[in-house]
């Protein structure tokens, strides 16, 4: 009886001593925590500063601490019309950004899936050639072809429209490439089984290929949504009416009060708007994270 008690009290002691020696774990975690802190610190500063009024920033710069203007600043950022015309509020920009991000992601996925489908499953002449042509457009990102693109959109009268904002961006070599690789890994027999089961090309695409590509689509969606959300150059060029501004493009305008050039910019509201701009991509990544990893690492076959 006694011996069992002593051994029971001895065991944890030994364990504790052993655990203390695991310096590798401590070092690993310190490095990780330090890294995360370093990355999160600017964000934290922004959040904190967004709780001060504009004077605090103008006098003392970024703030480390909390003040009482938090709700007010966010309220202003989202709902108070401002800007040059005084008609645009944060909500409008948020919805513009969402439309751009969603349209961009969905458009890219649809277009690249269909392109990859044609390239992989239809034995038309120059299929490989077409693919490489598409692939070489990787060498021509928007920044390179921005003037001709603008010319085209402008001549169609599509400036300040969602169409003009989204369509020129959705052709995607990367997307086509990923879907092509994925489709090529789908077993040939599946296509043949479907043919025998009486599924034509459209049915096969919708009933079999699209569901099989689910995780792939999710992964592409995240990447493309964030990419679209963060577009700056193209929206700046294409949208001149403030009603069409996206968040990324609009932050700068909203903190500057054009009506009175002597006034101090609304720094607190600007910080709040920055945080609001960061949130949707973060939420999407958090939400779809497991799908994202799945889509890139395992194939559901």
């Amino acid at each position, binding site marked *: 009886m006694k011996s069992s008690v002593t051994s029971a009290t001895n065991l944890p002691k030994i364990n504790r001593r052993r655990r203390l020696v695991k310096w590798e774990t401590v070092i690993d975690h310190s490095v990780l925590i330090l890294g995360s802190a370093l990355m999160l610190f600017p964000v934290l500063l922004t959040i904190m500063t967004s709780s001060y009024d504009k004077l605090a920033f103008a006098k003392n710069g970024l703030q480390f601490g909390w003040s009482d203007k938090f709700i007010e600043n966010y309220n202003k950022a989202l709902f108070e019309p401002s800007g040059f015309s005084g008609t645009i509020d944060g909500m409008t920009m948020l919805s513009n950004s969402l439309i751009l991000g969603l349209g961009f992601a969905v458009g890219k996925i649809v277009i690249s899936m269909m392109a990859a489908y044609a390239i992989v499953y239809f034995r038309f002449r120059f299929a490989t050639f077409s693919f490489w042509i598409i692939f070489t457009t990787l060498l021509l990102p928007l920044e390179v072809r921005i003037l001709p693109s603008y010319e085209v959109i402008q001549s169609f009268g599509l400036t300040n429209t969602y169409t003009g904002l989204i369509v020129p961006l959705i052709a995607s070599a990367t997307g086509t490439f990923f879907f092509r690789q994925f489709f090529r890994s789908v077993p040939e027999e599946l296509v043949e*089984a*479907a043919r*025998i089961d009486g599924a034509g090309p459209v049915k096969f695409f919708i009933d079999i290929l699209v569901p*099989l590509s689910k995780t792939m689509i999710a992964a592409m969606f995240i990447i493309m949504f964030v990419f679209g959300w963060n577009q700056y150059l193209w929206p700046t060029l294409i949208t001149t009416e403030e009603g069409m501004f996206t968040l990324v493009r609009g932050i700068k305008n909203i903190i500057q009060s054009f009506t009175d050039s002597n006034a101090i910019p609304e720094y607190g509201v600007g910080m709040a708007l920055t945080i609001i701009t960061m949130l949707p991509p973060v939420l999407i990544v958090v939400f779809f994270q497991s799908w994202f990893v799945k889509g890139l690492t395992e194939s559901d076959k």
Partner: protein
Amino acid sequence: MAHVSLKALEKIYPNGYHAVHGTDLEIQDGEFIVLVGPSGCGKSTLLRMIAGLEDITSGDLEIGDRWVNDLDPADRDIAMVFQNYALYPHMTVYNNMAYGLRNRKISKEDIDAAVRGAADMLNLNDYLDRRPSQLSGGQRQRVAMGRAIVREPALFLFDEPLSNLDAKLRNQMRIEIRNLQKKLGTTSVYVTHDQVEAMTMADRIVVLNAGQIEQIGTPAEIYHQPASVFVASFMGAPPMNMLEATLNGAGAIEVAGLGAIGALNSTPYSGPVKVGIRPEKVKLSNRQEGDNQPFIHEFTEELGAARLVHGRLGDMPFVVNLHQEDMIPEGALFASLPVETLHVFEADTGKRVAV
């Protein structure tokens, strides 16, 4: 149910490879035909031409009195079972079986009846809501069978459906498939490279070699009267022993390095031949007697029911399938080759010599 007729079917792939040479084959209604041959001999190509998955370069294909050369696979009234099952991974077992019927605009009630009927037959009732990834290999193969059955096609096509299964399951599924086919009475063409499957399942076997039919016959005919050296050595495990020999006009067989081993009753053929004998037809003894020949013993494989004694006869490799329990393959050994069990083939063409 339908008879199938292949007339001078040819397949030349776009890259110029001639995979199937003028193939003629008449398949009776309800017959179970096995296409067998070494890998790369064109079995799958031929089957896929029947299915409509490969274009027919020339020749005619009829399924139940219809000329189907130009029909889509879906319109040929066939069903196919693939080696890797080819189940739709994102659909349940039920939907896998129902998919083909839905595409044919069959009513929900009829689909349900067909799927449940097939599931009953294949013991899949408990798995209808599962995904293929949640099934074992044997169950997946059953689902693939179910998908073929529900359609009640005129013709079943199987492309090595059992080669992904382990040996035990393979034996079990082999019997199951054959019983099912007998019950349904559906004409079937079954491709395999496994001669055991071919022998045990087929009504008639078609032996293919390099895109050409070597022989068509019942399993017994193929085994006991192989039409060529190829068929003789391909069918049977261990394969038939082959000895280089000459036949003189009178029917006497002279084996290179051994001398005369006997005489055939009557054959007008003379010249160089290959003489074959199945390992189980050879008799071993420890004493030299009659026409038997000295056998150089190398090693023995114990199979339990029998022993495979490997060695040489003259300078040619030779295997004896020894059933005699009391015979211990040691010391001086002599093999006797009963003349009535010999197969004689022309040395240059490999064709069987009528004896």
